[in-house]
């Protein structure tokens, strides 16, 4: 099998890659080494089996000092430059959970594009703003403080993050009587947010990524300048719009106006559009100008 055929087949195997990522990122044995690094994926580090440090939690902790998170920003920025938001599409465990939930059959709907801006507001207010103004780094410790206690901190991890609730909060409540005793209005509100996010994931594809994920916002900014490109050849495109219907983030790849034709910063490079596109060469993904895969079953080197 040629390299290009293998690349084409990889598009079919994305769910498997996501599953491997979920397992590796939650394999306790790697945690002692992995928690020194921040990958651009949402996987709660309050869970003991979590392999890597959460970039959102780490930035919040730095900002509370206050101290500019050079290391985390450098790492995320280089990842964004090298592979854009491909981590969101191929490696993020919570993205995988949402993809699985969206497979549940039933009525589906898209969210208004205006809501995409919400995650930028959350990034500015709850990851940077309030931790900078109100934060005390000594308060930002412990699952109890971050998830349960009424007197916890005022930041994204403590107030919103459904991943922390799913991976650390719910198991903590089940297994630890002390956590149950300390449960407060924050616990109730975070459980409600988790329920809403999971329900919305069934109804609207990657709704959390589009609306509530501050890491997605950060990576969208970090990947303004990036090596990967996903483009439409307007000559080959028949505007069947299968790509738009498949796109989990409603990235406007097929142009409405002349001059458009490149995926927006919302694109998570899952390449589902390339996989479903029936027209040879209408959609193509490249890395640093080198073509990786094109639609219609053909690839070029």
């Amino acid at each position, binding site marked *: 099998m040629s390299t290009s055929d293998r690349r084409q087949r990889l598009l079919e195997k994305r769910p498997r890659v996501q599953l491997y990522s979920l397992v590796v990122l939650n394999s306790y044995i790697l945690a002692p080494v992995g928690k020194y690094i921040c990958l651009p994926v949402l996987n709660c580090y309050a869970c003991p089996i979590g392999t890597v*440090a959460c970039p959102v939690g*780490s930035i919040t902790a730095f900002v509370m000092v206050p101290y500019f998170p050079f*290391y985390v920003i450098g790492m995320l920025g*280089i990842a964004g430059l090298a592979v854009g938001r491909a981590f969101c599409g191929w490696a993020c465990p919570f993205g995988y959970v949402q993809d699985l939930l969206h497979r549940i059959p039933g009525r589906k709907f898209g969210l208004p594009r205006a809501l995409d801006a919400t995650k930028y507001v959350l990034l500015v207010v709850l990851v940077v703003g309030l931790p900078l103004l109100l934060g005390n780094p000594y308060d930002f410790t412990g699952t109890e403080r971050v998830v349960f206690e009424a007197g916890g901190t005022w930041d994204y991890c403590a107030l919103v993050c459904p991943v922390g609730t799913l991976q650390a909060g719910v198991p903590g409540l089940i297994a630890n009587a002390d956590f149950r005793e300390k449960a407060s209005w924050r616990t109730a509100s975070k459980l409600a947010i988790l329920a809403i996010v999971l329900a919305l994931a069934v109804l609207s594809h990657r709704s959390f990524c589009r609306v509530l994920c501050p890491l997605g916002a950060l990576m969208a900014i970090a990947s303004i300048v990036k*090596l990967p490109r996903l483009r439409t050849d307007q000559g080959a495109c028949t505007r069947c719009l299968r790509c738009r219907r498949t796109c989990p983030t409603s990235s406007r790849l097929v142009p409405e106006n002349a001059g458009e034709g490149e995926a927006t910063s919302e694109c998570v490079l899952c390449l589902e559009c390339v996989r479903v596109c029936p027209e040879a060469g209408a959609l193509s993904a490249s890395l640093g100008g080198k073509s990786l895969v094109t639609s219609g079953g053909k690839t070029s080197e």
Partner: protein
Amino acid sequence: MSRKTWILVAVVLSVLAACLAYGIYLGDPGYVFANALAVCYT
């Protein structure tokens, strides 16, 4: 990609690499690790 884009990529990469290296120099990875353990085990 055009030559202009490659220059832009090189400049951005240099800034980010400097940012990362300065963070490592200041001991940021240790703080990331300590914070991760503090959130996890306390």
